[in-house]
């Protein structure tokens, strides 16, 4: 195998391709990136066995071939080459070594046979016909990215370690929860997504997808076990979490049945919470919200760290005054998932979940369970 390209063409694609590579792995080939050159095109791929990223680009090709090269090392070398440097990579299959030359710099890297690189079946390959649909990249990023903060890290309820993508009437919905808070984003289901089976996208996949910053139109292919996202020359393919997402809809409070409704400026509330939490410990992060007509007072008291209080005006208030405790961090995360100038807070009691919505955007909601304070 031998091909030539430039550092600038290869680097961003290699960065994308190596996204799934874990910092430590016990299977050597998983630390490598698969490099395939054929028909004037280069294909790079890396996997952690659960997800696979492939990228493609056109190169000047002298000789086709395939090999796997150490992913991180290759990425670092390219990053340290001068801007715009031409790069040539030659693989000697016999010696199992690859040589990268750029100007007068020369790097010899060990390789592993391409045959060792684990194959991963694309959605629908040798199985059910996948649902196929496309979304503009910003839409997809909003759909999966906005609820992502609520994904769980607890291994025992592994089925919460991701974003639940499913049909909700005429809409496509993405939900994440860690049992303390929940967030849901929706959008009008695009053509082709009518019969999508519900899937749980693993947290690493969601994180990588957001990191890869998709552009243009993203094509999604989904079966009950595998999903792929493709745009430009990049494809991210993933297995889904094999589990049952809980019936989450019943924990979302009905907005019209809550005894308290308040409209609060979103960013000032987040700033106020952050300020008051300066005295809260990392362990509890508990804050108290005293809501009433005209104002909300945010306070925190930590026996050994002092106390803090701040008051914020609020516009519309309906209901009796309500004092309710929260993990302040959860509230801030939730507020950041919303985009509008103000939010509507719906609450019922100090022991029932609070619903936070955007009065101008019905496509996002956040539910936060209170804390005893």
């Amino acid at each position, binding site marked *: 195998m031998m091909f030539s390209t430039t550092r600038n063409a290869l680097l961003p694609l290699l960065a994308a391709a190596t996204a799934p590579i874990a910092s430590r792995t016990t299977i050597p080939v998983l630390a490598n990136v698969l490099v395939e050159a054929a028909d004037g095109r280069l294909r790079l791929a890396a996997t952690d066995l659960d997800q696979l990223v492939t990228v493609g680009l056109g190169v000047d090709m002298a000789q086709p071939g395939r090999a796997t090269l150490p992913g991180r090392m290759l990425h670092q070398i390219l990053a340290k080459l001068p801007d715009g440097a031409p790069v040539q990579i030659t693989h000697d299959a016999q010696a199992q070594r690859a040589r990268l030359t750029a100007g007068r710099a020369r790097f010899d890297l060990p390789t592993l046979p391409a045959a060792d690189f684990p194959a991963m079946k694309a959605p629908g390959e040798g199985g059910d016909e996948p649902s196929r649909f496309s979304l503009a990249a910003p839409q997809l990023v909003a759909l999966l990215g906005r609820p992502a903060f609520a994904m769980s*890290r*607890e*291994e*025992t309820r592994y089925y919460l370690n991701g974003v639940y993508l499913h049909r909700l009437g005429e809409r496509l919905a993405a939900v994440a*929860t860690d*049992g*303390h*808070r*929940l967030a849901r984003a929706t959008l009008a289901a695009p053509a082709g997504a009518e019969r999508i089976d519900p899937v749980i996208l693993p947290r690493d996949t969601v994180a990588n997808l957001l990191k890869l910053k998709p552009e243009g139109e993203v094509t999604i292919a989904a079966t009950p076990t595998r999903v792929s996202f493709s745009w430009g020359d990049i494809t991210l393919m993933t297995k889904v979490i094999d589990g049952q997402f*809980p*019936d*989450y809809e*019943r*924990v979302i409070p009905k907005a019209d049945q809550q005894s308290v409704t308040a409209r609060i400026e979103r960013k000032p509330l987040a700033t106020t919470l952050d300020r008051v939490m300066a005295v809260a410990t990392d362990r*509890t992060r*508990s804050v108290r919200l005293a809501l009433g007509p005209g104002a909300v007072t945010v306070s925190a008291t930590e026996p050994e760290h002092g106390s803090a209080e701040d008051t914020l005006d609020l516009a519309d208030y309906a209901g009796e005054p309500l004092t309710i*405790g929260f*993990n302040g961090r959860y509230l801030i995360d939730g507020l950041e998932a919303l985009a509008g100038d103000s939010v509507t807070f719906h609450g019922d009691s100090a*022991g029932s*979940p609070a619903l936070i919505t955007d009065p101008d955007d019905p496509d996002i909601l956040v*539910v936060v*369970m*209170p*804390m*005893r*304070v």
Partner: protein
Amino acid sequence: MDAAESVESALDAAGRGEVVRKVIHIDMDAFYASVEQRDNPELRGKPLAVGGSRERGVVAAASYEARRFGVRSAMPSVTARRRCPQLIFVPPRFDVYRTVSRQIHAIFAEFTPVIEPLSLDEAYLDVTGNLKGIPSATRVAEEIRARIRAETGLTASAGVSYNKFLAKLASDHRKPDGLFVITPREGAAFVEGLAIEKFHGVGPATAARMKALGIHTGRDLRERPLDFLQQHFGKSGPYFYGVARGIDHRPVRPDRIRKSIGAEDTFSVDLVTFEAMRAETRLLVDKVWRHCEKSGLRGRTVTLKLRYADFETITRSRTLPSMIAGRDEVDRIVEALLQALFPIEKGVRLLGVTLSSLNTEGEAESPQMRLAL
């Protein structure tokens, strides 16, 4: 067991007429059930069980009306309902029980700083040198009972004696709403006539073994020499030897803070299959969780202990970010820990499950509430 330390020197000490301690054991009568009946007049005089009525539910406490039907705490709810079809199930309100428990503790604290709580509703008090200078321990016990009744509207039984073992036996003797005193002169005689099952530290398994050895009463126990008891009951031998003579030098330990809640079992035949070990761990989890419910304690760390046939002992544990809320979650973690050990090549002679990183403050669950997912 602490009593094992030096039975002989204890006997000597008693013979030398050292200061006789005054120990009170206070035990609230049908605590959880009584609180529920106090707070809801409709439940008074009726057979009541606190606990889950569902399939896997367990009775946490039974009112005296229910006990008449043979309903006992730790009994599966299904069995309880079979014994008493009109049994009313009430979900536990641990917050309330803890509040009452703190009230009672505050009353104890007025009389003595030497308080050893056993659970929310039970404690040992050493009133040898009490704060009010009351010479008679019986008077102290009477005053405490009266104060508990006046301040909480609940009844407590008290046992007064010169050690923990006898004080606990005494409180049980006139239950409910009773007071019983065992003086140093009566101690040995009181124990003589006692059925072996009544001894603290003698569970169903030990009772069966004692009976097989011809030990049915305290008198039978007293007739067995120390080396015989040590041979058959190991570490517990000296304790049994002592208490059979009314001697128990375990101190009332005021600052005893529980670090963990655990249960383990040694099997008569080594276990080899995952299924068999799984079945045993379920029982252990049940046992641990029952204790959690009784004490109001919760933990974040689950540890699985295994002892192989060759006595090699290993432990595996997992710590969660927040307090574990339910039995099933403990069970799932234990299953995952066990699963990770397979394939196991050696037989397993002992399994243990322990919950630690406890909320020793008595604050039950984490203040963060959970969504009802």
